[in-house]
């Protein structure tokens, strides 16, 4: 039983997973397109995904939302495929298709019977360079993304607060700008903005092909060479170097009141290191730390201390960390107070739990249990081959390699309690954090709500 809460904005929740190494094959085409083939022969189904190494954090200044807007516009047709026809063709094959945008990537996928893979590749390769946009389509689709923003963000105080919190977290790095764009900038995006972004970044040497399902890697390679092989790369593509964060010298705090808030909460995020290629140990320790502190609403350190017993202060607590990110990421927690507990009291209670944890250290039994669960997660994850495909896509566009993905389960298993405590002491520092109170009325801050 968890109350509805909006956690950090990530389009798609990624579990820590890895496929068996012997079922994953990779190759690279001459034009730079990298490919990953994940075999799963249980059902004659295939997921075909094309990921671009381009996301909201790669946008030009003042053009927030352009990566996401372009994602919508990619369905507006080419010389050979009419507007809307892409999805209609996938439908006619009994397939499903869609697309998604995050900070570090933009992805397109279709899920079809395996004998339709060739057609999917043909169409996806066609729109990598051949997009045609009319002014009318651009106008209407801009209205659609504004409606999307209104639905996802402007109607939801938790989502609005999340935007403000991220903006406070990142003073300089574009992770502080919403993926869907600030409303005033998204409203002003033009056809030329989209096309200029498209021409530079939608290229085989900036893309990763992922094919997962009942396929033979050699056949996939031959198909990819036929369809993606002839597509010209973008010459001299610049490396993805984003502005970095200056040292944080003062704690950041923000409050927001909105009458639509039903359940006030405290949320804090700390700037935290991400998984880096060949150096995933610290991120693994933080992954275990999040599980220990707030991974279970029954057994975690926060739940036991704050949700149980006569002195319980919280209705719900959770800690979160996702290490898959090209640049510096967040470690965070959220705590929903009981009705007669103020946000100030709630925050103080969480801080006391964290302080005690930093003194007491890791409970060995809980640590062992979490390790076993993480290992089992790998087994359960193999049941969802489309999920595995997403894991690889997010990792590879987030600066990791196939080797890193495959090493991750072992890196997690190798984490020691000492490493968890070192990571905890390094990251759980309020001077390095943003603390937010979301409430119904400003008075919630002091009194019980």
């Amino acid at each position: 039983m968890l109350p509805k809460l909006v956690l950090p904005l990530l389009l798609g929740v990624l579990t820590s997973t890895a496929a068996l190494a012997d079922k994953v094959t990779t190759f690279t085409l001459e034009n730079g397109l990298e490919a990953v083939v994940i075999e799963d022969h249980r059902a004659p189904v295939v997921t075909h995904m094309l990921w671009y190494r381009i996301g909201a954090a790669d946008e030009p200044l003042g053009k927030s939302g352009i990566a996401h807007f372009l994602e919508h516009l990619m369905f507006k047709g080419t010389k050979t495929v009419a507007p809307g026809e892409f999805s209609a063709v996938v439908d006619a094959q009994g397939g499903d298709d869609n697309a998604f945008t995050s900070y570090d990537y933009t992805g397109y996928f279709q899920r079809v019977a395996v004998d339709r893979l060739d057609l999917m590749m043909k169409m996806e390769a066609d729109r990598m360079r051949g997009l045609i946009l009319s002014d009318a389509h651009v106008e209407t689709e801009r209205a659609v993304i504004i409606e999307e923003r209104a639905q996802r963000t402007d109607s939801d105080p938790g989502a609005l607060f999340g935007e403000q919190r991220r903006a406070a977290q990142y003073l300089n790095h574009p992770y502080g700008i919403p993926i869907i764009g600030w409303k005033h900038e998204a409203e002003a995006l033009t056809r030329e903005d989209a096309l200029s972004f498209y021409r530079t970044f939608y290229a085989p040497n900036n893309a990763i092909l992922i094919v997962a399902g009942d396929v033979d890697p050699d056949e996939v390679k031959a198909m990819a060479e036929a369809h993606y092989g002839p597509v010209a790369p973008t010459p001299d593509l610049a490396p993805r170097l984003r502005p970095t964060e200056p040292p944080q010298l003062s704690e950041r705090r923000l409050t927001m009141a909105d009458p639509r808030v039903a359940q006030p909460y405290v949320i804090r995020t700390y700037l935290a290191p991400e998984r880096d290629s060949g150096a995933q140990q610290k991120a693994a320790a933080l992954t275990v730390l999040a599980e220990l502190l707030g991974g279970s609403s029954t057994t975690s350190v926060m739940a036991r201390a704050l949700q149980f017993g006569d002195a319980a202060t919280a209705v719900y607590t959770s800690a979160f960390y996702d290490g898959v990110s090209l640049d510096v990421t967040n470690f965070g927690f959220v705590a929903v107070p009981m009705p007669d507990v103020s946000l100030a009291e709630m925050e103080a209670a969480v801080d006391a739990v964290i302080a005690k944890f930093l003194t007491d250290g890791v409970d060995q039994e809980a640590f062992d249990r979490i390790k076993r669960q993480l290992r089992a997660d790998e087994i359960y994850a193999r049941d969802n081959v489309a999920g595995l495909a997403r894991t690889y896509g997010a990792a590879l566009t987030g600066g990791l390699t196939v080797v890193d993905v495959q090493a991750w389960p072992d890196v997690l298993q190798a984490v020691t309690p000492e490493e968890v405590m070192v990571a905890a002491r390094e990251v759980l520092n309020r001077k390095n954090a943003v603390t937010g109170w979301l409430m119904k009325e400003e008075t919630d801050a002091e009194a019980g709500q």
Partner: protein
Amino acid sequence: MMMRLVFAALVAFALPAQAEIPIQAVKSPGGITAWLVEDHGIPFTALEIRVRGGTSLDPVDQRGVVNLMTALIEEGAGDLDAQGFANARDALAAQFRFEAGMDGIGISAQFLTENRDEAMDLLLLALTEPRFDPDAVERVRGQVLANIRSNMKDPDTIAARQFNRMAFGAHPYGSSGDGTEESVAGLSRADILAAFKGTLSRDRLYVAATGDITAQELGLLLDKLLGNLPAKGLPAPKRADWALNGGVTVVDFPSPQSLVYFGHQGIKRDDPDFFAAFILNEILGGGRFSARLMTEVRDKRGLTYGIGTYLAPQDYAEMVLGQFSSANGTTAEAIAIVKAEWARIASEGVTEAELAATKTYLTGSYPLRFDGNARIARILVGMQTEGLPIDYAQSRNALIEAVTSSDVARVAKRLLNPDALHFVVVGQPEGLQTNP
């Protein structure tokens, strides 16, 4: 007693290309039936159990008791308190989920082959000896109340609840299975215990398993796990009478956008015209971009991010429902388009081209659903609760293919009536008032 397993049927249906999914009907020595797909590729099993009834079995003055009870099943059992139970479950890396719906309680379990017996012993403990400790009751009650308060500020929930209240009144379908702040505050431990005994019973049980388990192993497991549940549960609710006429109900909510939830009466799952209605809905308001409403409201005019309609054949009432959001200034226009499309398809039916494309999509996409143990187990339980035969997966696409455009036109006239549509609008829409 000698172990004896009866294989009533072994059905395999072909997917496009090569593979087949063989569904076995398993009957345990104790007489519990289940559908099974064996797949030994990954060392775990997905087990799906559904018990018909759900929150509609709440006594009148105890709205929310089945929901609260279901949330408590895992919060301590036998000699384990809530934390002890969670520790034991997590140590086995087993995953259990308990969910209460309007028409049933769902229990989903995933467990590793290496410790299957221990994991099932733990689930057995939860299903037979839940403790409902007072401190656990209070803690989970607090979580349920937090959910209820959140939902009171959530436009989607506000709209659906307003709609259901007006459509079904005092019937359980007319109110949320979560209960209200008052009703949940008043639930006692005795109420919760009674709900447990009255809702988890063998007379309305549906079971499916997929994964690394044999028919024989499954049969033994089921007897142990479910054999001691009470034989009979609470009496089923009555049919829900429909009391909602066409019109508009505006619920004021401070937001730049209005959420619109709309619908009227629908069609039963076992109606001979169900498939014609299913295809009709897909053409009118399916979630795909080619559906008429998506084309008219989103693609041509940019009035919404998404719009969809669906058939809701529940156990005691049937509806056709739809939902979208639009800016307050354009909501009235979007509603007018929905009504116009409703009228157009009711009077003109669908084109042969639309019918053909929709059939290709529905028949082609059906086998794609069966990928993954957990998904297959859920589908198999769904088929059983709908009363479908074990060879349904084989015959289903033929039933789709058999529908003609005149079938769809006839059903469109019978089912869709723009004047009967009621729109609940949550927001501050311009130019719209509650009517009648």
